């Protein structure tokens, strides 16, 4: 997608080629001007206020994968909480103080020795934003959205994740009011760890379901 944006590619030696990096001194682009104009017009006409926008930016900034990791860690150490979380994901998150600022619901999908879950939105980019923050570009782009529902095992392999044939894969495609969060499996060798230490292992990509939680990786 050519726009002059500078994409940070984590795993491939990607040649940025024709993408000019955006620096702080760059003249605002056409769409930034449009966004500014739309916002100012809506404000002048009384539909929104500057505080509405400012507040929501703060809300967005406060939502990161660390919240999801805290939910996962709590579920790992507290079986009663886990049961409540699996029954009603939004209520479980709200117990920990993670409010849902929109009308979405949450279903938490537990990975087990027999079942591996991953989440996708083929139609757009539905994602559990209140508990994970904003999704990465790859989640919103065509390759993942098109292929996760037809060849999930190949897609997972591209993330380095091999799922044996005797493990069932469940792909959840968001289209409506429900969002999903994968509850990954707790790695071996973590008995007696504190919630904080456990949470530090849990990455955003593990809660999307494309990689497992392991002791080898640091939390993203």
């Amino acid at each position, binding site marked *: 997608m050519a726009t002059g944006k500078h994409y940070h590619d984590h795993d491939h030696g990607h040649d940025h080629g024709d993408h000019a990096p955006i620096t702080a001194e760059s003249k605002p682009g056409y769409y930034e001007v449009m966004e500014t104009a739309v916002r100012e017009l809506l404000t002048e006409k009384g539909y929104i206020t500057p505080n509405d926008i400012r507040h929501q930016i703060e809300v967005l900034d406060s939502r990161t994968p660390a919240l999801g990791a805290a939910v996962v860690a709590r579920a790992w150490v507290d079986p009663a909480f886990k049961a409540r979380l699996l029954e009603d994901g939004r209520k479980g998150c709200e117990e920990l103080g993670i409010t849902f600022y929109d009308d979405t619901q949450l279903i938490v999908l537990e990975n087990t020795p027999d079942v591996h879950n991953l989440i996708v939105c083929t*139609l757009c980019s539905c994602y559990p934003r209140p508990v994970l923050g904003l999704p990465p570009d790859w989640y919103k782009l065509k390759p993942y959205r098109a292929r996760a*529902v037809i060849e999930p*095992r190949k897609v997972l392999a591209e993330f380095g994740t091999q799922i044996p044939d005797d493990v*069932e894969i469940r*792909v959840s*495609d968001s*289209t*409506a009011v429900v969002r999903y969060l994968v509850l990954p499996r707790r790695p071996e060798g973590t008995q007696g760890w504190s919630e904080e230490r456990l949470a530090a292992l849990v990455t955003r990509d593990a809660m999307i379901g494309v990689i497992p939680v392991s002791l080898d990786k640091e939390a993203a």
Partner: protein
Amino acid sequence: MTASILQQVKAGLNELPAFAVGDRVRVATRAPIGHYRVPIYLRGGVGVVERVIEPALVDNEEEGYGRNAGNKRHYYRISIPLPTLWHDYQGSHRDELHIEIYETWLERA
């Protein structure tokens, strides 16, 4: 007595879910133009109701046109075996696709 009065309670139109957990359902094969939220790859798919989403909600396809109110119905989380959706599916025969579908798109299978 009160028992027979309670039995005479009539639910609102479409207030109660039409399908229950475990029901076999088919995704309709209609091909609308305009805004839809049921991907084409699922049309005609047959699956099982895993969960009834509560409460009843406005049809999101209508919401796209700014119609936020009106007759509410239920969404259902259904599971469809992936090998039944794709001709040459590579993977386990037990792999599944899970998705929320609005009641107006489902028929009993």
